[in-house]
């Protein structure tokens, strides 16, 4: 029996379970307050949440508005909150959710204005994406050949093997606390896609792209990895953003507080092997920043006098210094 046949058989033998749905309903055209509507279905545990919602719409309540298309995790249309997690409804089975939570609460995605029920206005999300200029800006030194496709080596392609999987579903954007807190942050997908063009050997705008993003939100990523949990295609946006930060540091580090802090931290540890908290503030924010931080610093110093002490170098600091010598060859950025 093939694996597919075995799976089919396993599904066929599944017992149906009662799945309670609480679905967010809101229609601004009709006014009134958002509310949750309760539905119950008998479903096999492997059934995707989307199938459940479509059965609700088709069999119980034709007024439920939701966005979907392919039902196969390809089109990226059906991202929503499933028990508070940003997920593709078509890729999330009902069974584990009912087991963990006893019910399935469905909300529209976060960080985007709600149009109706589960449908959000994705325009802000697309606008941020477009700001990344997500297309090749050809390197004149490496023009497209006239008589055939341009070629990349497997090693070159390897550098951005994850990002082409992205289906722009916005689950990462919905899950991101930086997007929620600061309109300057372009969002995980926009940055992951930017990374893809920065490392594309055919692209000639690498430096300009890095320069632009350094001062436009790159360093607002919190590296909380909530986007990586939400991403249905294993693009791992938080890791692509990390890669982008390291490239930005290499290319033109130290031009704004974010990279200054990363570089400052790197240099901070080199001298004693352990963190000098006070010195780090100066390294990131300069003397002016240190003065600005003074009132808060004094307030904390009263309870925690250690913050002004320089740490003793660790035992084996020479080993640490030698590791720096071996691997921090390119002396990065201006101090």
């Amino acid at each position, binding site marked *: 029996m093939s694996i597919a046949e075995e799976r089919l058989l396993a599904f066929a033998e599944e017992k149906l379970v009662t799945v309670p749905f609480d679905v967010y309903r809101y229609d601004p055209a009709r006014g009134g307050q958002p509310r949750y509507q309760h539905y119950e279905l008998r479903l096999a545990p492997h059934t995707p949440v989307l199938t459940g919602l479509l059965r609700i719409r088709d069999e119980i309540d034709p007024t439920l508005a939701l966005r979907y298309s392919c039902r196969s995790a390809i089109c990226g249309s059906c991202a929503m909150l499933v028990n508070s997690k940003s997920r593709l409804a078509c890729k999330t089975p009902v069974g584990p959710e009912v087991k963990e939570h006893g019910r399935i609460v469905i909300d529209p995605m976060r960080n985007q204005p709600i149009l109706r029920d589960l449908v959000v206005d994705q325009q802000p999300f697309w606008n941020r994406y477009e700001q990344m200029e997500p297309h090749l800006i050809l390197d004149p030194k490496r023009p497209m050949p006239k008589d055939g496709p341009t070629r990349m080596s497997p090693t070159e392609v390897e550098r951005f093997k994850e990002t082409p999987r992205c289906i722009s579903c916005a689950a990462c954007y919905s899950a991101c606390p*930086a997007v929620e807190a*600061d309109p300057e942050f372009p969002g995980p997908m926009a940055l992951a896609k930017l990374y893809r063009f920065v490392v594309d050997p055919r692209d000639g705008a690498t430096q300009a792209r890095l320069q632009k993003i350094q001062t436009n939100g790159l360093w*607002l990523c*919190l590296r909380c990895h909530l986007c990586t949990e939400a991403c249905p295609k294993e693009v791992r946006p938080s890791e692509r953003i990390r890669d982008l930060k390291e490239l930005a540091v290499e290319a033109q580090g130290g031009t704004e507080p974010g990279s200054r802090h990363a570089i400052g931290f790197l240099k901070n*540890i080199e001298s004693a092997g352990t963190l000098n908290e006070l010195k780090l503030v100066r390294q990131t924010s300069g003397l002016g920043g240190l003065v600005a931080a003074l009132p808060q610093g004094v307030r*904390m110093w009263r309870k925690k006098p250690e913050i002004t002490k320089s740490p003793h170098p660790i035992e084996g600091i020479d080993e640490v210094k030698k*590791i720096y010598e071996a691997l921090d060859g390119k002396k990065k950025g201006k101090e």
Partner: protein
Amino acid sequence: MKLAYYPGCVAQESGKELDMATRWVCRALGIELVGFPSFSCCGSGFMDEANEVLNVALNARNLAIAEKAGLDLLTICSTCQGMLSLANVRLNDPTVKGRVDAALKPLGIEYRGTAKVKHLLRVLTEDVGLDAIKAKVVRPLSGLKVGAFYGCHLLRPADEMNWESGEEPHAFEDLLAAVGATPVYYRGRVMCCGFPIQFVKPATAERISARQIDDAKAHGADAMATPCPLCHISLDGYQNQAAKAAGHRLDMPVFHLPQVVGLALGATAEELGLPRHMVPTDGALAKIGSKAVA
């Protein structure tokens, strides 16, 4: 139980109370801590952004120190836990491993990849066990509603941290219940505290930490507790700033994880370093009938 104690930078400096509380709790539970004055900083996520391979190499050196002593590492910081674990993960990449080995070999350091990294929360819930802790509780934290605040790097990326769910963990809540407190579930418990951008854009960082504190409060929390001293800096150290960003008072006492356990096991506020907090913990202590701190 004997573990290589990796306190991390903050617990040896501004977050000294975390170190005090950890030592007290480990003593009470019979966990022997072996210190290594040669451990270096984990890089705190910042160094990783400036030079990934250098960061992995420094942590490989840390891991090799514990490996040589035949001990697993005990961390008390979500970020240390995350960075040391990530070093183990990234050393699976042959290119990274090659560069790291080449830097360590001339120093006579070899890391074979066997050192396990465990956060105190995991040691308490899995190795010591909730029943053993329950048996030692002398002052149950009854009536105290506590919002756990995990700290990102303890949980995520979940496939690499290889422990709890990255979005719906429960170990901390289980532990809180075991010491008699009432765990409070709120969305912010798995979110970011804002610390990584405290120096990049303080206003945004403070809005983020205020959001999580408000969320805990809206769900009825009398106090919060965190297994991460960096989260503690944001939630407690900078709470006055967060309150300004939010435009209202927050008044949320924030405990370190071992302080909550220590209180239940009978430690005094002074032994746990509670007077060192920026936000007074008196109100929370009064709820469990403990002596208020000055």
